C-alpha cells in the first residue's frame, strides 16, 4: 500500500512542487495550507508522515507540532524551513528530522525514505 504524506505549506507554488515530486516518488500526498488544516487532515486523512513548514498563517508549525504530538504520539514529523532560528524553540526538538528548504529535494526525499523505512509509522 502507498505510504501517505501530509505536506503542510502555506505557499501554494511550493505545495504543488512537493506534491508532484513526492507523487512521482510513489507516495500518496495530502496537503494543508496551515497548522489548523494539518490537524484536520491528521484526523481525516491518517497520514504516515508529516512535512511541516514553520512560518504559516492561522496556526504556525511550532504550535501545530505540539498539537500533533499530543494527538498522534508516534507519527514521524519533518520540519521544513528556510528559517534557521527554529532550533531555539524547544518544541522544534519534538520533530524527527529537519530539512532546510531548497530547490533540490533529494535530501528531503532521503529523510522521508529513512523515516518511513524505520517502520516507525503507524
Amino acid at each position, binding site marked *: 500500500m502507498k505510504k501517505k504524506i501530509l505536506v503542510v505549506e502555506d505557499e501554494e507554488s511550493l505545495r504543488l512542487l512537493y506534491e508532484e515530486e513526492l507523487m512521482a516518488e510513489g507516495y500518496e500526498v495530502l496537503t494543508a495550507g496551515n497548522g489548523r488544516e494539518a490537524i484536520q487532515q491528521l484526523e481525516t486523512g491518517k497520514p504516515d508522515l508529516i512535512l511541516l513548514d514553520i512560518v504559516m498563517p492561522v496556526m504556525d508549525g511550532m*504550535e501545530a507540532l*505540539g*498539537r500533533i*504530538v*499530543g*494527538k498522534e*504520539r*508516534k507519527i514521524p514529523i519533518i520540519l521544513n524551513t528556510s528559517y534557521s532560528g527554529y532550533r531555539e*524553540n*524547544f*518544541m522544534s*526538538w*519534538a520533530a524527527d528530522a529537519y530539512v532546510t528548504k531548497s530547490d533540490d529535494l533529494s535530501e528531503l526525499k532521503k529523510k522521508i525514505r529513512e523515516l518511513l523505512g524505520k517502520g516507525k509509522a503507524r
Partner: protein
Amino acid sequence: MVLAGGRGERLYPLTRDRAKPAVPFGAIYRIIDFTLSNCLHSGLRRIYALTQYKSTSLNRHIQLGWNILSAPLGEFIEAIPAQQRIDEHWYQGTADAIFQNIYTLQEERPDLVLILSGDHIYKMDYRKMIAFHLERRADLTVAAIRMDRNLSKEFGVIEVDRDWRMIGFQEKPEEPQTIPGDPGGILASMGIYVFNTELLVRRLIEDARSESSHDFGKDIIPMMIGKDQVFVFDFRQGDLGGTGYWRDVGTIDAYYEANMDLIAVTPQLNLYDSQWSILTYQPASPPAKTVWIEGGRVGTALNSILSNGCIISGGNVKRSILSPRVTVHSFAEIEDSILLEGVDVGRNARIKKTIIDKEVQIPPGTEIGYHLDEDAKRFTVTDSGIVVVPKGIRL
C-alpha cells in the same frame, strides 16, 4: 513550576468545590501557601502555578493573597490554567502538565527548573537542594524523605548508592528497597525535582512521543536512571524545623491529624518562626474574642487555635481549630473539631471530632459526632470516626 492541579479525591467533600492546594489548613492558610512561602524565602520569585481542576478558589487565593512580588524586578507568581493548547484533555500526568507548558519554559529560558507540588505541608530551603544539584553536576535531583518501611505502598521509593546517586525507583512497592544501613527505613520521593532545563525538555518530548502515563514518578525518572546524572537530596539537609516534618494530607484522617498536631504545646510544624513565616491571604477581621462570664454562661476556648473575627459567645471550645469569623453561641460545645471560615454554631449545639466546611450554619441544639450512624446518613464519616459537614449544606 508548582503543580497545583491535584484533585485530592480522598479529601472529598473538602475538595468538592476546590483543588487540593486550595484546601484550608491550620486555621488561616491554604495548603499551597506552604510551598509558595518556601519559594519566597528561598529567593525563588519567578513562579508559575499550573492549575486545572476546580481552580476558581485557588486562582482567587493566588490573586488576592500572593500579589505581593515586584513585577518591575521580574518577579511574579502566576497561575496558569490548563490552556489545552496542545491537547484538549486535562493534563494526563505530572510530566504532561510541564510538557504542555513548554512554551512558558521557552519564554523564560531558565538554566534550572524546580518542579514542586502544591499538595504538601513542610518548610524547606530549596537553595540547599539547588546548591547540591550544582555541586554534583546533576541533570536531575530528586528530594527524598525517610519514612518507615511499612509505609512503602503510599510512596515512590528511591534506591540510592553510597554517593546518593539514584539507582532505582519503585512506585508504591510492597517490597521496597530500604536505605543502606537502615533496614527499617525507605527514601520516599517528595515530588520535588530540580532539572537542567534543556535535559528536562528533551526527556519530556521523548516521553510525550511514547506510550506512557506521562508522569514524573512512573515514567520520566525511571527512564533517566542509568542514562542521566540523577541524584537524591536528603530532605534533612534542607529542612528548617529540623523535625523532618512533611505531610501529604491526602486523606480526611491525615488532614484531621495534621491540623490537630498544631494545637500541641510545641508542634513539629512551627508556625511562629519569624525567619520563615508562612504567608497567606486574610481579609481584614477584628481580633478574636470570648464573651459572657456569668452564672453557667461562660465563653471559653481551651487548647485551641482561634483566628481573627471569631466570637466565642457563652459557648465552650476545647482542642479545636477555628478559622476566621467563626461564631459559637451560648451553651454550645465544640470538642476536637475543625471549623472553617464563617461557621456559625447555634445555642446548645454539641460538636465533636467534626470538620465543618466554610459558612455552614449549625442550628441550635444540633448534635454532630455523638451518633455516627445517624451522622453517616447526612455527612461523610471516616473509618476512624471523623465527620465532615460539607460546604453549602442547609441543616
